[in-house]
């Protein structure tokens, strides 16, 4: 690095999972490579490095983003959440627990991106965001039922080549149900609509 012209490097402070990390980065460095190669936070995966697979999904200010298309220097000042910051200490996030219990993965490589995506999907849905699968998109219609079709549509930015989609959908539905119950139990919050599970679906007649 010493041989490089100094103008191609900058010191940045990245706010990752509530901790500040100050480092000098090559301007070409993506947020993904900064995490993996500079900060040894390898939970965020590199599947394609060109924004096509979703394996590197992180949350930027609670919104989904692919870290491979984000330059590290441009991530300063953002609140970055990676898979390492999803659990609360030793207690798994309900999405993580559901993926573990329902086997929402096989090789596990797309899993951190799927889980980050699912965490945001549940919040986006509860906030009333429609998707391409939503029938009634009028703002006053409120959040649509979180059907399997809604989950599939909202989770389609994350490829899983092992083909664990069936259990991924079930895991997201289970976590969303837990989230909706928690919201209903909590005082002073509007009850989010109960998620509709996938149990009513059947491949058999």
């Amino acid at each position, binding site marked *: 690095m010493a041989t490089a012209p100094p103008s191609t490097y900058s010191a940045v402070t990245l706010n990752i999972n509530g901790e500040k990390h100050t480092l000098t980065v090559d301007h070409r460095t993506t947020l993904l490579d900064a995490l993996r190669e500079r900060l040894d936070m390898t939970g965020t995966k590199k599947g394609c490095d060109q924004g096509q697979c979703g394996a590197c999904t992180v949350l930027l200010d609670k919104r989904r983003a692919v870290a491979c298309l984000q330059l590290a220097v441009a991530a300063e000042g953002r609140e970055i959440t990676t*898979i390492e910051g999803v659990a609360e200490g030793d207690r798994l996030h309900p999405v993580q627990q559901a993926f573990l219990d329902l*086997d929402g993965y096989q090789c596990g490589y797309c899993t951190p991106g799927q889980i980050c995506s699912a965490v945001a999907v549940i919040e986006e849905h509860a906030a009333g965001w429609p998707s391409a699968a939503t029938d009634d998109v009028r703002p006053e219609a409120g959040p649509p039922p979180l059907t399997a079709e809604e989950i599939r549509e909202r989770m389609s930015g994350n490829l899983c080549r092992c083909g664990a989609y069936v259990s991924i959908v079930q895991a997201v539905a289970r976590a969303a149900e837990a989230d909706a119950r928690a919201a209903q139990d909590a005082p002073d919050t509007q009850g989010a609509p109960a998620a509709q599970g996938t149990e009513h679906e059947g491949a058999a007649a």
Partner: protein
Amino acid sequence: MTTTTTGTTTGGTAVRAVGTAHSRVEGRDKVTGAARYAAEIPFTELAYGWLVLSTVTRGRISSVEDAPVLAMPGVLAVLHHGNAPRVDIDYVGMLGMRPDPTVAVFQHDRVPHAGWPVALVVAETSEQAREAAEALVVHYEEEPHDVAFSAGHADAYSMPGPAGPGVTGKGDLEAQLAASSFVLDAEYSTPEEHHNPMEPHAATAHWDGGRLEVVDSNQGTIWVAAELASLFSLDPASVHVRSEHVGGGFGSKGVRAHQVAAVMAATVLSRPVRVAMTRRQMFSLAGYRSPTTQRVRLGVDAAGRLLALEHSCLSLTSTVHEFIESGAGPARVMYDAPAHHTANRVVRLDVPSPTFMRAPGEAPGSFALESALDELAEKSGIDPIELRVRNEPEVGPVSGLPFSSRNLTACFREGARRFGWADRDPRPGLRREGRWLLGTGTAAASFFAGAAPSTAAATAEADGTFTVRINAADIGTGARTALTLVAADALQVPTDRVRVRIGDSDFGPAMIAGGSMGTRSWAWAVTAAAEELRERMALSDGIPPEGITVRSDTTAAVGALAQKERHSFGAQFAEVAVDVATGEVRVRRMLGIFAAGKIVNPLTARGQFTGGMIWGISMALHEEAVRDRNTGALYGADLAGYHVASNADVPLVEADWVDDPDPDDPVGIKGIGEIGIVGAAAAIANAVWHATGVRHRQLPIRPDRVIRADAHA
């Protein structure tokens, strides 16, 4: 198992771990991001290598202009054919195959296909390596190429492959066809398909005290270690390969250019070097499934008994390596006829080398054969399931050997009941729901069930726990968890007292994760070691501080298996909706019922079956790598141009199984890694016919093909 005790007891009831659902033992690491894959193990003084691939399809390298690149910031080396260490490819590898010369990178100036590795740029950071690699100018003397693959290619020849001899034949085909009441003669084709595991191939190599250490993503560390030892003429004991977590493989993760290039660079620079393929590079370097053109001719008598069966399959390979996609293989197992002829042929073109890809041979072959059976059912007016049941062979159609077990009919019966097949009107094009035409289809599946010699070590630790070491690879199969269950049962202890360590070439020879043979082969060795350990413990007076370790080797036991036709079987069912105006095909539901041996872990097995079936959806509707005849390279070689099924493409897919323990396996395992994809694309294509009345014999069933076919119907 031969033990007479009842296993772990809970409240007086015998509990066996095998057959009960168990979440993955490494699952917590995978959902928290703690599991480290090959490119994620830190090394001090790590340098980054970036491969440079040829931009021409055939020719010679006239110069590599490395001087300007060597002057770029951080660049440490440019390896190419003029300066790279020499390797030896004159050997036969662990799987009995000669190496694909593609792995012998930088040995000569010839370019035999597009995307051939011509250089490796090594730099202090990945950004520097990438920019320097993109800046490297390589001059070529370009030569004409031929990448045109078509049926009836004049240079095609037959060769043996994984499915046996190139050509088999008995009986007079023309005479039996002439005697048949109903005859089908159809051609089918499948495109070039790519594995695309989510984790790109990556390896880090370094020398440590005279030993070559490689952290890699592969389907068998002993396999890769042995290949590297042969390539670099090293003592096999001086090569150590580790592969703790593997982000998918599907046949693509053996020895490849990245490991060899990393070892070369680590040797030249005397420091750790990591080489990771980019997603786009994987389309040239990781192998792929050859396109196929297939012809099937079938003839049946009035009762639906096959009198004639001919299946021929043409695939392609590169000019440097022979690999054959044995699409005619399934016919040698599935159906018999007085006249029975199969042939696998290959043609050499200026393309990258194809390789094993999930259900090699069976996946494209079953598309053709099982589509043809459906067409024959239509012609003869016999229900597609009934037609298959009437043609269940007594013995192997080609081998004449008995089947170890064959529960295909049970799969169809159970599947038909659950899918609602009995109410199906066989006539096509009748069911409409809004803009959608609806249809259902079925197909049969089979995959070879085998075992290969493996070794394992089981240790009774002084603290009452057990450690099992076996050179297995968990590429997403759940092998680590399955072996934990198998070991716990053999040791007769709860699973939480067993720790299974895998993915380390120092653990000794074992089968790779491939051929649907991994878990069976490893479980056999683990069972043997664990059972002997129990006997040793019974005779010993306590556990010494260093523990008691027993090693097993199943070479003799596996070698003593009687010659039989050994296969898993399955029945696939699909319902589709087709909009003939837009050409859109949606799979609405799928059901697969399998007879695939003892199911060790129902939780992970279900996912493996359905994952295979989802590969079938992807194969039927999405996947197609298109090679440009002018440039010789692929169009859109990435995950935007090459479509794999996404979540929204996949409906509820269900898999279940019938009782089918293998009678000759200590645990009853057959193997489940590949059968899920077999027949799945045919079931979907057959359902598309049932919906629309149009046969699609060319995969994938793209919207434009649906529209054009409907216009001609």
